[in-house]
């Protein structure tokens, strides 16, 4: 099988419009959570979220940087985030000037969990109040999940595989795993892979609120709302943004002298086959997903230095994941660190697995692991695990495991190592 490496990174998060700003703020233990500004959420189940900040904010996102004004008007924000993150990644990799021949072998696998929910909501209201002749002609292709891959392929002329994963909160991890396999299987030499989400809109908050998934008890200080593994956690805080990596066949990357961040060495997938929203009570799907990724990687568990957990801050999910990690790692759990960056940027749903994979890669680059914020009072099952409370921690990081689990009982795990 051909080897696959990461040669470019791109991020849009609630803590920054690019990779370095987001990472710097993550390591500084900042939180992206605040009262929702996009609409008045006072009467909603929760009124706080981790929004991507406007361009004039200290760590805001300037949509005009890589996305035409016209396209911004036509598409939902998740597509804008995705196009920008993909642009950052391909620029970082130095692949904006590929030949036509190369571009036939370069593709996209950028998905989303939900897609254009804000636009579906607002155009439904246009239909209701003004009738069918006032619905935007760009309504459909401005909301479809595969339209990040579509837009990015057009912008950069990428004529290889054009794919988009939709597996709820596992989307970002599945996207990277699937794309890595396409390269390994010789379907492509270069893939832009990742995920994006922007569902902080009335119907999104109401829907997740009714599913009893959101944190609701921290209106007075939203930065305390996302608190994975803490005894007082009460649900996830919705985030938004995008993460995209450039995956490249190893020999090709080496031959052109590319900066190589990491190698993707393991990918695991499983289904809980249990319940639409609740995780399996023994965490069996999570366990098998991690086990498969580890087996493929050829590493032993004691080689893993850092686990970026799914850790959404829901009462059930965090401990089931931790239990599965504990069973899999055995004694090796004592030598690794595990944290949830959702404590800082919230849950990016379909973007989460990709954004968190990038944090894993940066942890290897800088030999530092990001913190789990708000872990004031770890729940009882956390003993003996370094969950990196409150502050980032310098340590050896040579190999990482990233977990993502989604509604529908879909699980994905990625193992990467530094070269």
């Amino acid at each position: 099988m051909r080897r696959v490496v990461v040669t470019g990174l791109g991020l849009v998060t609630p803590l920054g419009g690019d990779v370095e700003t987001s990472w710097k703020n993550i390591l500084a233990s900042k939180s992206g959570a605040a009262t929702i500004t996009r609409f008045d959420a006072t009467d909603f189940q929760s009124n706080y979220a981790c929004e991507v900040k406007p361009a004039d904010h200290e760590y805001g996102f300037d949509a005009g940087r890589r996305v035409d004004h016209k396209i911004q008007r036509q598409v939902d924000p998740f597509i804008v985030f995705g196009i920008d993150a993909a642009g950052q990644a391909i620029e970082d990799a130095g692949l904006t000037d590929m030949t036509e021949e190369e571009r036939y072998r370069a593709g996209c696998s950028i998905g989303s969990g939900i897609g254009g929910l804000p636009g579906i909501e607002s155009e439904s209201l246009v239909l209701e109040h003004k009738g069918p002749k006032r619905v935007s002609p760009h309504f459909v292709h401005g909301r479809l999940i595969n339209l990040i891959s579509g837009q990015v392929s057009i912008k950069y002329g990428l004529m290889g595989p054009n794919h988009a994963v939709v597996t709820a909160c596992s989307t970002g991890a599945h996207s990277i795993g699937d794309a890595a396999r396409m390269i390994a299987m010789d379907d492509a030499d270069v893939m832009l892979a990742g995920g994006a989400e922007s569902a902080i809109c009335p119907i999104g908050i109401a829907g997740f609120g009714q599913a009893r998934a959101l944190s609701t008890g921290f209106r007075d200080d939203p930065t305390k709302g996302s608190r994975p593994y803490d005894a007082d956690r009460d649900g996830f805080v919705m985030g938004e943004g995008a993460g995209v990596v450039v995956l490249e066949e190893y020999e090709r990357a080496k031959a052109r002298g590319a900066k190589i961040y990491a190698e993707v060495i393991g990918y695991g997938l499983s289904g809980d086959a249990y319940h639409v929203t609740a995780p399996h009570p023994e965490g069996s799907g999570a366990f098998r997903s991690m086990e498969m990724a580890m087996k493929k990687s050829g590493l032993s568990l004691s080689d893993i230095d850092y686990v970026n957990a799914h850790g959404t801050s829901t009462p059930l999910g965090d401990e089931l994941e931790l239990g599965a990690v504990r069973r899999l790692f055995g004694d090796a759990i004592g030598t690794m660190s595990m944290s949830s960056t959702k404590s800082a940027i919230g849950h990016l749903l379909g973007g989460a697995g990709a954004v968190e994979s990038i944090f894993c890669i940066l942890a290897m680059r800088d030999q530092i692991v990001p913190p789990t914020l708000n872990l004031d009072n770890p729940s009882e099952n956390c003993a003996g695990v370094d969950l990196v409370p409150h502050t980032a921690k310098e340590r050896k990081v040579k190999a990482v495991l990233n977990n993502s689990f989604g509604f529908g009982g879909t699980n994905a795990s990625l193992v990467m190592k530094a070269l």
Partner: protein
Amino acid sequence: MSETADRVRKIVVEHLGVEADKVTEDASFIDDLGADSLDIVELVMAFEEEFGVEIPDDAAEKITTVKDAITYIDEHQG
């Protein structure tokens, strides 16, 4: 430039993201201003909203330049 022309130009600038000075009366939406057929559907909708006129599909098909839009609106308004 008439009041209609001013308002048409404003809508075109906003929807197509082009510089105002490119939106001359002779400018073709597709050839000069980078619009595609769906952008024109959207522009026609915006004209209908702004001016309270109805522009049926067969008339919309004949609107290819800024001037065509202004003329149609002036002839059918109020």
